[in-house]
């Protein structure tokens, strides 16, 4: 039964690529925002916090449609990016990565923020008295100590990105070989007569990927505790 057909392989590999690119692009932004939310007080902080969490509470189809309006070929951001940088999102796998990145962003940011908050601020003060400028305090103390949280966030974000469906299909549709991820492939198969077995195969694949990611996140979280206790 686990005879995976070439079309299914294409969808699996595309899903992995989309999720990997989405996670790698979102991580630096996520770290910066997590640090801002954890360590700084500024005007509009609650608003930024709400904005980060928005993809979690909005219907995915709304997020996808908003992305289409903004990053579509005629959208204000999409037109500029296409004309000046040659980056096109609409109906491309890059658009799927953008949608997955946005949808998984809240899950990525949360563990990073929590682990930055857990870093003892007194250690950062000690670093300062030893001559470390703020960005070096971040690079040599805050970031290394919150690294397990960063990795846990990346794993969770990746798992979410792999499973993303609503925003992706709204924004970039369901084109085999270009934007058809595991989720949208399953969706198509369920609507096809005789598609049940193939759908089930992909269901098993996505369960395996999700469980692996969760175990990975758990492992990183345990490492975080050890690291903070200096063992």
């Amino acid at each position, binding site marked *: 039964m686990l005879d995976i057909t070439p079309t299914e392989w294409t969808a699996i590999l595309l899903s992995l690529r989309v999720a990997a690119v989405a996670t790698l692009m979102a991580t630096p932004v996520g770290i910066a925002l997590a640090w801002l939310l954890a360590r700084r007080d500024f005007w509009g902080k609650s608003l930024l916090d709400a904005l980060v969490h928005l993809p979690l509470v909005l219907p995915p189809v709304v997020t996808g449609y908003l992305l289409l309006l903004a990053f579509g070929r005629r959208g204000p951001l999409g037109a500029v990016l296409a004309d000046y940088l040659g980056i096109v999102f609409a109906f491309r796998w890059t658009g799927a990565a953008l949608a997955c990145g946005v949808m998984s962003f809240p899950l990525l940011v949360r563990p990073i923020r929590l682990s930055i908050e857990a870093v003892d601020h007194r250690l950062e003060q000690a670093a*300062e008295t030893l001559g470390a400028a703020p960005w070096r305090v971040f690079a040599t103390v805050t970031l290394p100590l919150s690294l397990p949280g960063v990795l846990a966030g990346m794993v969770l974000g990746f798992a979410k990105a792999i499973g993303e469906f609503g925003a992706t299909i709204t924004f970039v549709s369901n084109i085999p070989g270009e934007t058809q991820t595991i989720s949208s492939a399953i969706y198509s198969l369920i609507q096809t007569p005789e598609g049940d077995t193939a759908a089930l195969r992909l269901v098993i694949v996505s369960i395996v990927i999700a469980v692996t990611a969760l175990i990975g996140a758990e492992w990183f979280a345990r490492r975080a505790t050890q690291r903070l206790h200096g*063992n």
Partner: protein
Amino acid sequence: MLRVDVTKQLGEFSIEASFASEGRVTGLFGASGAGKTSLINMIAGLLAPDRGKISLDGDVLDDTEKTIHLPAYRRRIGYVFQDARLFPHLSVRANLDYGRRMNGLAFDPAQLTRITELLDIGHLLDRRPGKLSGGERQRVALGRALLAKPRLLLLDEPLGALDESRRAEILPYLIRMRDEARIPMVFVSHDAAEMRQLATQIVMLKHGRVTSFGGVKVLSG
């Protein structure tokens, strides 16, 4: 010469302190809650005064009238905290080397040997802070602060977190540091016996105010 003349409101509590000290070890003496830690946090640059001036050897560190507040990382003032605050993710060696790296100083193996011998921590270099005893941790913290080549060293109850026997273990090192390291120090304590052994000048602090200032004899006054 360390000159401090500051006021700071911290909730209900206020500090209005002024003193100048040329002593090798300035002892900041007072009961807990007298404002000792807040005062040296201001000298370190971790806390900004509401009003006033702090200068070290003529260099202005804080001057609220001229809106000068030199950030802690540019003061070259070492700080040994009561709770050591070693970096848990770095080895003892990397902890000791941290200040040198951050200040862009050249690696000085002779200095490293001198300090590790002074504090008897040479055998700990490859350990992680989590594996050290309280006394060892505090000695490494002393070494880490000294190796950053500070112009002034602040010691905030460095013996406070240790039990009686450990205190007896560390105190001789502090006396050696005073006599050999040639770095002026501000030593904070509420223990008169420690003060007598270490300080050369005493600043008495009570409810955020300086009540007396002078040689070690003010402790008995």
